[in-house]
């Protein structure tokens, strides 16, 4: 809980900023392009906020009352990568091409080919198109090709029911909360990276500054206050949905009820809690 409270304080000043970011995206404006400047602004905002607003809701939060889950409708994703950007800013993820709590993959089937061309925003060609590792975009690299089929797949930690990462953690620094999120206690992690190895989805990374393992927490500091994860908040096409499965009227419950969903790498037995619609056999 200490970690959670610390996170809350850290993020308090950035909440307003994220709201602006979401608003800008919804308005269709490309508000965030100077990635190198914005994080500093965000940090400055955090630093200059006189005091964090009280969070009574957080204190009242009861993890036993919730069962969080995440849905991805790949048919809706347009690959705008606002989710990646919002996540990086909200969670202070290193602004480079090697550390992501969430990312987006692009699958492109060219005419006459059986296997897809896959890339993410971290691909050197896409970085070149963006001009910097701190901005995110997919280059129009297939413009001269005949494309049979193409789609985007947002990825993040699957917050598995049987997480291999939690199983292998030697200290218990990473654990599954009662509400289903898999989180890491950064004050207790020894940085052995065994969990990074164990995760079949490549969702974990080593935070080079904190020297501990890091990953998506479904924005635990936000969801415990009744907010949506940053990536869900900013998605302009609602390709990402999040909610409480205990609430039958929640978006996620409806998403699961209305769709035939699948999970990534079910053969691992990890039993992910991120459910996909509209992915293809080659997505792993």
């Amino acid at each position: 809980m200490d970690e959670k409270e610390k996170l809350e304080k850290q993020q308090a000043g950035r909440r307003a900023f994220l709201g602006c970011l979401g608003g800008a995206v919804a308005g269709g404006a490309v508000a965030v392009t100077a990635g190198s400047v914005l994080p500093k602004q965000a940090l400055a905002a955090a630093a200059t906020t006189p005091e964090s607003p009280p969070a009574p809701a957080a204190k009242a939060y009861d993890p036993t009352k919730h069962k969080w889950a995440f849905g991805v409708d790949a048919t809706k994703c347009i690959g705008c990568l606002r989710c990646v950007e919002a996540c990086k800013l909200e969670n202070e993820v290193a602004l480079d091409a090697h550390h992501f709590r969430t990312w987006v993959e692009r699958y492109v089937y060219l005419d006459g080919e059986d296997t897809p061309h896959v890339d993410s925003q971290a691909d050197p060609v896409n970085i070149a198109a963006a001009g910097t590792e701190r901005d995110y975009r997919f280059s129009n690299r297939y413009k001269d090709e005949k494309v049979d089929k193409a789609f985007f797949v947002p990825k993040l930690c699957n917050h598995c029911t049987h997480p291999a990462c939690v199983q292998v953690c030697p200290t218990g620094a990473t654990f599954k909360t009662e509400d289903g999120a898999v989180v890491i206690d950064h004050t207790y992690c020894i940085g052995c990276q065994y969990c990074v190895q164990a995760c079949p989805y490549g969702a974990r990374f080593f935070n080079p500054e904190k020297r501990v393992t890091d990953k998506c927490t479904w924005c635990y500091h936000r969801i415990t206050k009744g907010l949506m994860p940053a990536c869900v908040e900013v998605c302009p096409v609602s390709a990402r949905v999040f909610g409480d499965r205990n609430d039958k009227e929640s978006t996620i419950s409806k998403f699961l009820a209305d769709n035939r969903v699948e999970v990534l790498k079910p053969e691992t037995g990890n039993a992910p809690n991120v459910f996909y619609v509209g992915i293809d056999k080659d997505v792993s």
Partner: protein
Amino acid sequence: MEALFTPAAFTGYTYPNETVFPWGVLIVVYPYLTGLVAGAFTVSSLYQVFGMQRFKPVAHFALLASWCLMLFVPTPLLLHLGHPERAFNAVFTPHWTSAMAMFGYFAGFYILLLTLETWFVFRPHIVHQAQTLKGLPGLFYRVLTLGSYDLSEKAMRYDSKWIFALAVTGIPAAHGLHGYVGFLFGSLKSREWWSSDLMPVIFLFSAIISGTSLLIVLYVLSCKLRRVPVDVDCVKGMGYTLWGFVMFTLLLEGVEFANIVYKGREGIDMIMLFVSTRLLIPFFVVQIAIGAATPILILSFLFWRGVAGKALVTGITVAGCLVLINVIMMRFNVVIGGQEIAKTGKGLLYYPWELLGREGVLAAASVLIAPFLLMLLMVRVFPPWEDETKALSH
């Protein structure tokens, strides 16, 4: 300022986070060291437990070598940890489902056991030195006696019982420690290259061959340096041990590889591409052909033709050197190779070699060399060679 990380180049598609390798060359050195420990201890036990007299000339040295190597086993791990100051979190509040949480207990128990056995084995020497040396060296040995100066027949019989008991306990302890390292890799389902039930067994056998090889090479080298004749029978015995275990290890590695290929699960295309291009030289040429098949051929020829004397010693030593290369290459191909195959099954990564830095080649080489420097010192503090012990006692 040193870069916080060195990203890896890649081909195909890899998850973005995979471009920073979690484990580097330090984690190659770690299982190499534990393997040498377990292997050297095995040879020591062949004499102490199974009474194989031909191993007597190296038995005490094997124990001392195990001890020196074991002291440095935690070093690569501590250097690798993001927060080494929190290392004991895994010991004081272990997470029981984690194989890695057991390391502290296995290693702690085994270091204690090795220290005790080493003390018992060298007690006559310690007492002798404590009674003859003056000044600081004398004080050093007097402290080491722990107040026990009794070298009577009864006391020595008592010591022998302890040595035997510790050596017997040490066999599962040493092999458990190394089998556990194999389990660390083999139990991960995220990487097809690691995920094998045979991994702990392969690690165990490769440990035995590496430790035996090390003893062969160091024993022959020490004889040359000390200008004493090599005990050919002892070296031949270690040669036989090596021969049998290398064949078995090669068979296990072959079966494991055949399993991966034959099962042909998801991602096999990338594995086949990897082994047929990037791993062609490190795996097939260095590890298998040079490091395993060649020593088997050399040893087979030596034993078949009944070669004796200096030629036999030279042949077995060369085979030992090759097997040492085999095992470090095997560790490299497992630890680094496994991470070079992307978890996506759609790409390959290139391990970014670093010379300097906390996890660079220099650090790894230093960790690998350090136990041998300690050994140089320890053979002077506790002479393990039979001839020297005899000379001292007369």
